[in-house]
């Protein structure tokens, strides 16, 4: 069967004139071009502006508080006397949440990705994957509420000494929040591997588990690792759930049953409070935000680097 012959258009010829595109049209062209260009540049501009504000306001902060005592001080009491501006307690609070939620979410996320990709039937996958993505769309304040209402009492059931607000419940709830990200990105990395690679594994007398662990996971390692780092970066930036679940008590140490405060939770606390603009307390917001920003930015850069550098040629 041959394709349908194209019939010649009734008006097959026209005169090509230099002035056929009116000046009116070329004006619209240039307006549209500039609109698109401005939109494109605005993203860069906004980012630059935020960094600029953070830098300027932090500069004000560091002219009053020594950088060294900010970075390495172990007391964080900017809101009451005696004032102390050591960021380490809330930095540790953030890290506790990030590390514990990663420890919980990474193994589960990878297992979900492997299951979806290698074990689940097509029909199961087509139902389960959208559900997983819904999980990612639940507002974080809902997660925070669930942590207070259900997770924390659960923890206190097993550990009566646990505080009502504790780092563990914050970690668990953040783990649930980043799980879809890890599972979904890892699944994408696995799905991108060519079928021929799986076949090579099975044809060598390998079981499913051997193909997954010996061939597929190493081959997809760059994408999977990148998903971990993006998830950790997300956990560091997560605010609402940890503010609700983990409390507001900046503390050094790693007691997961105790109330802590993360950098993001501190920012919420000060932003909602009645701290006067221009005071040192107010300026701590920007210094802390700068630390947060540098942390997530460098993690995102590392993720990008790993994805490129570790990519296995296939």
């Amino acid at each position: 069967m041959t394709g349908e012959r194209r019939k010649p258009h009734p008006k097959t010829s026209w005169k090509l004139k230099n002035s056929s595109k009116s000046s009116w049209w070329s004006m619209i062209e240039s307006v549209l071009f500039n609109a698109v260009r401005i939109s494109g540049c605005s993203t860069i501009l906004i980012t630059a502006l935020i960094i600029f504000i953070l830098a300027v306001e932090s500069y004000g902060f560091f002219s009053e508080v020594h950088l060294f005592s900010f970075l390495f001080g172990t007391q964080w009491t900017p809101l009451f006397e005696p004032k102390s501006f050591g960021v380490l307690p809330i930095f540790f609070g953030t890290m506790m949440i990030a590390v514990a939620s990663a420890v919980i979410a990474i193994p589960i996320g990878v297992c979900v990705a492997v299951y979806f990709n290698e074990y689940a039937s097509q029909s199961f996958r087509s139902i389960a994957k959208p559900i997983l993505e819904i999980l990612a769309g639940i507002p974080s304040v809902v997660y925070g509420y669930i942590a207070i209402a259900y997770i924390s009492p659960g923890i206190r059931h097993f550990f009566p000494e646990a505080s009502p607000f504790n780092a563990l419940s914050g970690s668990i709830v953040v783990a649930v929040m980043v799980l879809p990200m890890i599972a979904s990105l890892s699944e994408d990395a696995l799905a991108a591997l060519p079928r021929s690679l799986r076949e090579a594994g099975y044809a060598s007398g390998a079981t499913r588990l051997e193909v997954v662990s010996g061939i597929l996971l190493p081959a997809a390692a760059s994408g999977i690792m990148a998903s971990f780092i993006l998830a950790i970066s997300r956990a560091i930036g997560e605010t609402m759930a940890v503010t609700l679940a983990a409390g507001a008590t900046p503390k050094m140490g790693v007691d997961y049953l105790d109330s802590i405060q993360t950098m993001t939770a501190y920012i919420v606390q000060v932003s909602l409070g009645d701290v006067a603009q221009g005071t040192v307390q107010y300026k701590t917001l920007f210094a802390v935000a700068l630390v947060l920003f540098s942390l997530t930015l460098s993690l995102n850069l590392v993720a990008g680097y790993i994805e490129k550098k570790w990519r296995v040629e296939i």
Partner: protein
Amino acid sequence: MTVNTSQESIMTCSSLGLYYGQVQAVKDVSFKLSSGVVSALIGPSGCGKSTLLRSFNRMNDFVEGFRLEGTIQFKGQDIYASGYDPVFLRAQVGMVFQKPNPFPNSIFKNITWGPKINGFRGDQQALVQSSLEKVGLWSEVKDRLHKPAYQLSGGQQQRLCIARTIAMQPEVILMDEPCSALDPQSTARVEELILELKKEYCILMVTHNMQQAKRVSDQTLFMYEGTLVEHRPTRELFDSPKADLTKKYLSGVFG
């Protein structure tokens, strides 16, 4: 204990029907394969030859909706019987694919991975050397065994894949158009290799290239629309095809 002579068949299929869902890809096919013989499966695209080939090491298990009627026996055992372990089968029935598909690993690990996960505890270095020597790749890669396999040329990669297959010491090697992605020179090398390997193994290869079937195979099976039209010694089949369809196919009336 019987000695496996070259005349004894290793793989047998009888009244084989293969389905994808409701579509029947292979209809009532029966034949036997013996050690020391290269058999070529030829036929137009979509005639079911790849499906047939892949059912011999149960690679079709991964295709949803695949179904089989009749039996395939490997060394006297029904490989689709419940309880028969497909992993154990694939360790003995190797496969070489259309496109070279080395593991994203070093040349060395490409050879040793399969044997290791199947209980090989011997000298890995010796295994790698002997496998690569058999495919004529040793002298080319002996100085870069730990370099990624993807740095090899396409032809070298395909020979590595064959080396990986024979490192498992299989009894049967299935080849799915092993030369279709290679340049003429590499094709010639792989063909030479197949002739060399047939002394030790039973080889079943799918090919689109009738000249290739003529050059390397002892037996030729011609398939058309899922049925096995003719199965005879290669020379006889090419010189004096019996079936009308075979005649037409060989003379290029369709294909």
